[in-house]
């Protein structure tokens, strides 16, 4: 693959609000034409990072480079980036046409060209005939399209999107995910997308940047992030995972849950303590005699596509996703293939995430809701 230049680089960025560290020596390079997602919980610094790129915030220290040129201190209106705001921030006193034309008007583009380009944009986002409509009377999805048209008409080199789908209902959100991805492909420009929704991040992005506590935890393709999380935080945050305390007696062997497993990982010191991740869908439930581990089913939840089964093995509650039905109280065996095991180095997050003993859907949904409101 040929070398693609970095369009945006953040070097050693620190940011604080009222003495509280929000970004902690953040380094990030974004390649031209990529769909990059900054993913993390609220307060992880993802929106702050986006606002630093847009120019609404100036970092306490560190450099922001655009096309290898430093742009610290350049005001937002002079940066070749445009933003889609979380609640769209459409101008309520202008109609659809005037909202989209806003950027061109400010640049004193001739009226005939404005008309042509606005109409082209309206076709692009499928809103022909909406020119004269008041933006306050549009549905969420339509407002979203106006916001996209209003930003994209300025031909930015980078489009910044701050949780643009969070205000839409589920069905519309899924449609818009596909549409945004298509728009990005058609335009061929860089998208930097901020979300706390991991599914959104995995399905849309070329590159996912997982952030926590003002630091980058992992950068990679969605598949890398899911299959090879770098630490317990990423493993826990992306998808479901059973995270176990283990050691690597030697290459290709991992010891956890009182058993030696064959695995594909190597390069650890002999008997190095590690964190082991096993995804719930990678565990097979088998008769006890064939199982590597043995435990009792303590909870079964039907999810439609599969059952979510919690199996207690010596006090550690495993989550297993399977299409076969089992019942609470069944004693079952677990079988794990070598490629289902992912070994990670110990990190500051070791031990913070583990089994599903405190597993509760309601709680999880509640905390997600409050997170949404916070940001």
């Amino acid at each position, binding site marked *: 693959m040929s070398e693609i230049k970095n369009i945006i680089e953040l070097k050693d960025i620190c940011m604080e609000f009222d003495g509280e560290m929000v970004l902690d020596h953040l380094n990030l390079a974004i390649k031209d034409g990529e769909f990059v997602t900054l993913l993390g919980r609220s307060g992880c610094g993802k929106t702050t990072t986006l606002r630093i790129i847009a120019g609404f915030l100036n970092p306490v220290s560190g450099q922001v480079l655009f096309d290898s040129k430093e742009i610290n201190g350049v005001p937002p209106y002079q940066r070749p980036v445009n933003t889609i705001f979380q609640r769209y921030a459409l101008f*309520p006193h202008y109609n659809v046409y005037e909202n989209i034309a806003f950027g061109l008007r400010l640049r004193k583009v001739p009226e005939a060209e404005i008309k042509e380009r606005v109409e082209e944009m309206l076709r692009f986002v499928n809103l022909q005939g909406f020119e004269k409509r008041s933006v306050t009377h549009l549905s969420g999805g339509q407002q979203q399209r106006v916001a996209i048209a209003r*930003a994209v008409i*300025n031909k930015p080199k980078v489009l910044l999107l701050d949780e643009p789908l969070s205000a839409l209902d589920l069905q519309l959100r899924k449609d818009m995910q596909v549409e945004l991805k298509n728009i990005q492909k058609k335009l061929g420009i860089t998208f930097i997308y901020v979300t706390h929704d991991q599914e959104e991040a995995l399905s849309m992005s070329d590159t996912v940047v997982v952030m926590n506590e003002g630091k980058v935890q992992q950068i990679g393709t969605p598949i890398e992030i899911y299959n090879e999380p770098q630490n317990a935080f990423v493993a826990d945050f992306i998808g479901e995972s059973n995270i176990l305390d283990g050691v690597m007696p030697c290459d290709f062997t991992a010891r956890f849950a009182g058993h030696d497993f064959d695995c594909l990982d190597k390069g650890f010191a002999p008997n190095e303590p590690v964190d082991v991740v096993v995804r719930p869908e990678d565990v097979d439930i088998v008769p006890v005699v064939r199982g590597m581990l043995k435990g009792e089913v303590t909870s079964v939840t039907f999810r439609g596509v599969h059952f979510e089964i919690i199996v207690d093995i010596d006090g550690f509650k495993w989550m297993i996703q399977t299409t076969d039905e089992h019942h609470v109280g069944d004693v079952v065996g677990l079988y794990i293939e070598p490629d289902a095991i992912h070994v990670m180095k110990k990190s500051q997050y070791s031990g913070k995430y583990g089994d599903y003993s405190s597993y509760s859907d309601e709680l999880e949904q509640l905390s997600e809701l409050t997170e949404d409101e916070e940001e």
Partner: protein
Amino acid sequence: MKQRRSYAQVLINAPYLLWAAIFILVPLFIVAYYAFTDASGAFTMANIKELANYKQTFWISIKYALIATAITFVIAYPFAYFMSKKSAAKQQMMMLLVMLPMWMNLLIRTYSWMNILERNGIINNLLGMMGLGPWKMIGTAGAVILGMVYNYLPYMILPIYTIMSKIDNSLLEAADDLGAHSFAKLRHIIWPLSLPGVISGIAMVFVPSISTFYISQKLGGGKIMLIGDTIERQIQTAYNYNLGAAISLVLMVFVLISMAVMNRFADDDGEGGGMIV
């Protein structure tokens, strides 16, 4: 069920309707009745015809009220803008400072200004110490307009501030993001969105200014007669309720028309999309 609910609604509305009838509608009818009758109660247009003699007074009142409104606007708009940009604590502090004079009665405030502006008042004493003056300030148009501006300034600041502090900051960021520098933001976003506040501020300053009689009496030194003074004199001194009522009626109609025109202006701007030129 439905009937009970509407019955309850009638009950809830009743005090307000009664209040409105007794204290708004009835007085209005009384004013209209007096305006079109003579002292004996017979219908006449004489009062209305006599208004022609007060053309000059009307004109001066409108002029002073317009000037006072314009000056309050020029002071209030930037003040409200900067106030809305401050931290919450500072905003509260500034709000307190704006409201503080209003805790005192209008009469007392105006009396204080008399003391300040008088021939032997504070300003002239200070000027005297520097070997200047004395300047005649009481009895000038400037003093009357100053009195109006001082007394009614909070009524301009408050509605503008309220609406400005409600402008979503992300709109300003969006404008910034799309290429608008500070002045462009003010012109294309803040100004049109704050217009309803400006309109109600203008109404709240212009209406009391055009009908005031106390400020003009005290600071005008008896030399400046505004429409309010004329009404007061007709009713209090000349006991000509009929002419007083006729002048009030015309003033009221004038104010209503100005309000209607201004509201129209605000609506138009809201709907038409307003081109950026």
